[in-house]
């Protein structure tokens, strides 16, 4: 379990992480979603005690990171696949980490085996492909057989096979009862792996929901209409108390059934070229969610002055 309370990080004027409060629970994969620059990596660095929070608190199983004895046995993390000395072999990289936490050398061979790097264990890390580097980082995270695992954009730069491997690995780790916290800026990726979803934008918490609830609440359905009698159709809508969003020659109507529009058009003798119910993708839902956070900031003062995180309404009870 990872618990954040009011976690905030400023870099000079820039508020990278703004008053984040949430918990990451064991037994499931929790997705940490946000567009580029949302503050995901910064949050993860604070969880590991690498960056000092400006204010707020973060705890691992109730304790501060620096209080953990042999932290690799509690939490393993992959932040950046290139965070190793290129001139050092994979074996020695893992060995020095293992030794620092009193882990036996046997573990080095075990994790090399798990990630499939045994054959190149004595090779220098600078010769590794992106995928191999990612696997080395994951091997380091698994070294201490920790109850909590944290991965920052682990599928970045991986081929489909590598992506599939990581997905399966994360789900297996969660099914063993571990806490798995994984960041991404791709909703589609999260939809496939995560059971719980935390969304941030501009450092603020936008949503903290199970994946099922997120889909239920955020998948917008609308009706798509094309008509040659655009002006008259809009008048009819207006008198029926409905509004349409115009995109090109297409009209989109929210919160109304296609049947109702069809009947309305028939009653006024309107010609329709298209009348189709639509379901916005999760990716769109995510973009809408985060775009709103950007828009919100554009016409309000400095973000840090705001107290309640925007989108608190999405937060589950």
């Amino acid at each position, binding site marked *: 379990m990872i618990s954040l309370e009011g976690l905030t990080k400023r870099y000079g004027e820039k508020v990278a992480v703004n008053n984040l409060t949430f918990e990451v629970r064991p037994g499931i994969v929790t997705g940490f979603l946000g567009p580029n620059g949302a503050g995901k990596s910064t949050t993860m660095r604070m969880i590991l005690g690498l*960056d000092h929070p400006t204010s707020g608190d973060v705890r691992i199983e109730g304790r501060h990171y620096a209080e953990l004895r042999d932290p690799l046995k509690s939490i393993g993390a992959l932040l950046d696949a290139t965070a190793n000395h290129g*001139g050092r072999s994979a074996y020695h990289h893992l060995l020095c980490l293992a030794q*620092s936490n009193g882990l036996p050398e046997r573990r080095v061979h075990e994790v090399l085996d798990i990630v499939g790097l045994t054959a190149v264990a004595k090779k220098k890390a600078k010769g590794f492909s992106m995928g191999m580097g990612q696997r080395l980082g994951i091997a380091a995270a698994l070294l201490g057989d920790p109850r909590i695992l944290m991965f920052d954009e682990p599928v970045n730069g991986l081929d489909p096979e590598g992506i599939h491997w990581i997905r399966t690995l994360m789900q297996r780790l969660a099914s063993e009862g571990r806490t798995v916290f994984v960041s991404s800026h791709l909703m589609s990726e999260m939809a496939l792996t995560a059971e719980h979803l935390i969304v941030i934008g501009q450092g603020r918490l936008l949503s903290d929901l199970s994946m099922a609830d997120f889909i239920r609440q955020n998948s917008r359905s609308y009706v798509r209409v094309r008509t040659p009698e655009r002006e008259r159709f809009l008048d009819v809508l207006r008198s029926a108390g409905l509004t349409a969003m115009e995109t090109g020659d297409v009209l989109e109507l929210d919160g109304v059934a296609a049947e109702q529009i069809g009947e309305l058009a028939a009653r006024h003798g309107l010609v329709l070229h298209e009348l189709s119910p639509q379901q916005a993708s999760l990716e769109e839902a995510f973009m809408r969610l985060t775009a709103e956070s950007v828009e919100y900031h554009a016409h309000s003062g400095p973000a840090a002055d705001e107290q309640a995180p925007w989108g608190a309404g999405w937060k589950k009870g």
Partner: protein
Amino acid sequence: MAVAQVVRSEWTKVRSVASTVWTLSVALVVTVALGVLISWLTRREFGNMPARDRLTFDPTFISFAGMSLGQLAMIVFGVLVVSNEYSTGMIRTSLAAVPQRGVFYGSKLAVATAPAFAVALVTAFASFFLGQAMLGPHRTSLGEEGVLRAVVGGALYMTLIAVFSMGVAAMLRSPMLSLGVLMPLFFLLSPILGTVEATKKVGQYLPDQAGARVMQVVTIDDDVPYGPWGGFGIMALWCLVVLAGGYLLLKRRDA
């Protein structure tokens, strides 16, 4: 966090990168070879030297002449062993494994200083013995007063050059920036201050000039206000200052 674990880990780090071996071996080879060459040249030119120079001739110090260049490799060793962590991003992996930054820092310094001292000790004795062999009739021996102290002092001097570089690198983090400060300090500023009479008084308190005093045996006829160990103490103080600076910054900064 058991300190012994971290020391073992740091030792694995130091011995598993090529730069450790090449910097330390270059320090040894260059220092000894240059010392031998200069000792040999000195013997040949001895007769042509002014009488005053012949009187204050210091055969021990001459055999360490190679250190002026060999210390360059020691500086590079000290800089790389610390700044490697930052330039590669390894520091985040390291501090996630050892969040007690003081333990991490202390272990790294201790572990990097040990091989530097071992190599410096071999370098100092090899420079001395080979240098004396070249000097022929003008040589001195370990039994003479102050000579053993100067040879051991030479080893300590070289070690502290590496330690000082580690402290500077811990403060500046970037290898290029650290070398960009250390090189001009030791190879421009110090020699320039040392040649001009007016600035000598300041230059003699620089770490390398003060520390080099411990390698000298014959020191008549100069007005340096400190003895061999006094000078060495000044150099050690410089090291303490930069090491403390490095510690405070590591403690405070985001990794």
